[in-house]
């Protein structure tokens, strides 16, 4: 019974496989079915949040940690399905297939967060990745530019390369310890020769750095964000990152304690991601590209939680990625609603949004201010706790102090590009841009996201306590 969320999503995927065999389908039915499966999986994840089990020869663990991540994945999936249900830029003919792959990807991610064995991890990761590779080129080719094809090819090539790194690292782990179970690797790795063990851990991490878009595994981000349909990007930008963080935390627990090499490497990658992401985002004109670069910077922030090598830091990283997903979903909800035919939005397309649709402007402003780390939103609380955690992990070591100062300076850089979008939405004249229609369901979901952003930011104590308890189950 413990794997009900996975089974729901699997049934959903199978249903869409069956649907895709028929020729003529009501577009409405297809999208309602998809949203229905999303909601059911969310309920299933909610009910199963306290389940505990160990399945498939102990390679699959159901615990609070995995169930929380599944809940977040199901939530992200449902929200993405709801605001993306018009699928404006996807051909009606391929919509059942689109949903099939979307649900398969979510299934892969749900399996990923429960996997505690290398082969299982690999299979789950590839299931989720390959489904995503297929989603990208499904955008309709109305403009004859074939940018979605370019994006799809880039995505698969970079993805396969990252997988190669990861497999290479896994082979080392197996070679050094003679087992594929994380628990046994954790016990055996300290006796393994250095630096081979460290190298293996870093290589495995590289695969997930790709998913999370950490420098230098970030190259795919801007083009894929731009080339994929808005709805697809909304999914890629949020849900897979949950799986990446879940596994990065698991892998980091393998790392040998007291060794500074890994910590310095993570610091370096964190700072590079922040500076690269924020500085590049400053000059973007396409909103999705800008959010992509901002995502790279946020990935850098999440590394601040990992490099403490401390359960407290991992819990904060969990909190931060949950907040990040919610903030980003809020932004993409607005983008999908404003984009009339699924075209990409330039920043100036948001001109005068405040007059064209005040609710959307408010949701966008809250989402962006939260991403920028302005209190009292979740983005601020997350950054604040990450910085506190990193500084306290450093003790007397001044390198940590510099890390925190540079990270704080990055917050100041980032504010500019978030603010310029808010500025356009609130102060610019709409000129001849039309009123944006938004239906009740989208409005309701957007307001729920805004409320979550504020509540998570203003009252984080309970959430952090749950994350702490979850991290304890994997240590």
């Amino acid at each position, binding site marked *: 019974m413990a794997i009900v969320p996975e089974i729901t999503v699997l049934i959903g995927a199978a249903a869409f496989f069956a649907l895709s065999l028929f020729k003529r389908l009501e577009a409405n039915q297809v999208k309602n079915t998809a949203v229905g499966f999303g909601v059911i999986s969310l309920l299933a994840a909610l009910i199963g949040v306290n389940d505990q089990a160990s399945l498939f020869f102990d390679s699959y663990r159901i615990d609070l940690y995995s169930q929380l991540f599944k809940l977040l994945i199901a939530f992200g999936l449902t929200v993405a399905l709801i605001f993306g249900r018009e699928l404006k830029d996807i051909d009606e003919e391929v919509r059942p297939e689109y949903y099939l792959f979307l649900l398969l990807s979510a299934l892969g991610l749900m399996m990923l967060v429960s996997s505690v064995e290398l082969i299982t991890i690999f299979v789950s990761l590839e299931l989720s990745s390959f489904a995503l590779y297929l989603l990208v080129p499904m955008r309709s080719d109305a403009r004859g530019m074939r940018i979605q094809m370019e994006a799809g090819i880039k995505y698969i090539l970079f993805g396969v390369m990252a997988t190669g790194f990861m497999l290479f690292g896994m082979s080392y782990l197996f070679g050094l310890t003679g087992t594929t179970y994380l628990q046994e690797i954790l016990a055996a790795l300290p006796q393994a020769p250095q630096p081979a063990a460290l190298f293996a851990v870093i290589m495995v991490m590289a695969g997930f750095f790709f998913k999370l878009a950490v420098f230098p595994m970030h190259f795919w981000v801007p083009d894929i964000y731009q080339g994929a349909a808005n709805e697809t990007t909304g999914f890629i930008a949020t849900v897979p990152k949950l799986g990446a963080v879940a596994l990065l935390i698991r892998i980091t627990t393998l790392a040998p304690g007291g060794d500074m090499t890994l910590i310095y490497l993570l610091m370096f990658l964190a700072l590079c991601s922040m500076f690269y992401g924020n500085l590049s985002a400053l000059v973007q004109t396409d909103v999705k590209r800008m959010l992509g670069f901002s995502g790279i910077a946020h990935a850098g922030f999440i590394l601040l939680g990992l490099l403490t090598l401390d359960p407290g830091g991992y819990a904060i990283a969990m909190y931060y990625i949950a907040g990040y997903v919610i903030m980003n979903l809020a932004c993409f909800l607005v983008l999908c609603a404003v984009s009339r035919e699924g075209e990409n939005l330039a920043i100036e397309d948001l001109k005068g949004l405040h007059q064209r649709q005040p609710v959307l402007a408010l949701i966008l402003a809250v989402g962006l201010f939260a991403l920028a780390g302005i209190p009292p939103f979740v983005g601020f609380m997350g950054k604040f706790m990450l910085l506190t955690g990193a500084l306290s992990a450093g003790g007397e070591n001044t390198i940590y102090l510099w890390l925190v100062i540079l990270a704080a300076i990055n917050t*100041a850089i980032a504010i500019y590009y978030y603010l310029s979008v808010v500025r356009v939405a609130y102060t610019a004249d709409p000129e001849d841009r039309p009123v944006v229609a938004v239906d009740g369901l989208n409005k309701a979901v957007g307001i729920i996201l805004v409320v979550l952003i504020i509540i998570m930011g203003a009252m*984080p104590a309970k959430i952090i306590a749950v994350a702490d308890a979850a991290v304890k189950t994997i240590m």
Partner: protein
Amino acid sequence: MDNLIINEGFPLLSFLIFLPLAGALVMLVFHGESFARFWTLAVTTVVALCSLPLVSGFDPTTAKYQFAEFHQWIPRFHINYVLGMDGISVLLVMLTTLIMPFCVLASWKYIQKRVAAFMICLLIMETSMLGVFVALDFVLFYILWEFMLIPMYLLIAIWGGPRKVYASIKFFLYTLAGSILLLVAIIALYLKNGSFYIPDMMWQQYSTTFQILVFLAFFLAFAIKVPMFPFHTWLPAAHVEAPTAGSVILASILLKMGTYGFLRFCLPITPDATFALAPYILWLSIAGIIYGGFTALAQNDMKKLIAYSSVGHMGFVTLGIFVLNSQGLEGAIMQMINHGVTTGALFLCVGMIYERTHSRELDVAAGVGKYMPWYVTYLAFFSLSSFAFPGTNSFIGEFLVLAGTFKENVPLALAAIPGAVLAAAYMLRLLQRVVWGRATNPDQSHLKDLNLREIVTLAPFLLFVFWIGLGPQPFIDMMHTSVVSLLDQLHSWQQQGMALR
């Protein structure tokens, strides 16, 4: 927690903070234009009335934090929800609550588009401003301190003048960039103390290097907010473009947060660094006074003139704080209140002219005296107050500051005197032009004098100008114990340090 006097009864401070926020939430649902105006006026008036018990119940014989509330908030990081008010903050809280209804009145006709959104911004501003003055937990303080940027940004960016986009972005980036390192300093202090509770951070044995670094981080944040020369460049832009209510809030309350920060945090948390760096800050204050005066003298835009005069006035405040004696500190706090009253009123006056002529140019407003007698009467009194004419409020503040400065450092005080003269020069220039004007006056006969709403708006300001000017003792009594206790601790700290050396 022994320096808190816990308020067991009705949580008055929390009520005052959250009432405007609740009022703003109501307007998310009901947003008719005239409803928004009356509702906001009602909410701010209720807050003002409910804040009166803070004065009557205030015990001026103790330096402890009164009306305090203490609740756990985020135990994992030892963050608490702590509020409290002492002699330093009580007057600032009162200034905030009393000035807000008049900001609403001043926006009654001035704001014609998106009224409800404007009023929501005003109410959210009130929540965060009150919170900043009474927060005793550093994270709570920081959250409110930063959060305030959003409504203030929107006030300028949506309802501002022609260069609103530039001014609002500059304001936002400047103040945000300044407070980034404040956050790092707060975290560093937490790691030394194990708590974000502000009074626990005071008078601790930190190393001098640590103190200097923390002080500099504080200084950057607060000096930008004050704004001290040379961090003042955002101020004229923001003032000129902001709507009247925004300018009043900015001048009367927001600027005080910087100097409040110096008093509340720099002096007690980093005393060694304060002693070491005070001389530099004193001379920066003098530079601000002189620079603000000369620049104000050259302005033709009335709002800009008053904005630069603020740089000079706030220079007197920082001067008073960092001479570190009781006259100086009390003068500085008085000057904070005075500047809030006088400059707020002057911005209201400029706003009233702007509503009539749609220009802030001195030449366009020249010679309205003949047709607007009520108006120029008010303007004359506030101008006199602005350059510290004896009998008005600013005289008390500036006199105390200068007396304190003469006691510590005569050359410094002598250097500040030209600033006072310059203030008279630029204010009299403004007054003379507006009342009499010149031969090239535009025809002002179509201008209507102040209506009842405007007369009522300005009257309380005038009341306070003379009340503080003629009978300042009750105000000084409120703060005296807290100031003396702060200075006692500071001086015994200094002697301890010398004894150790």
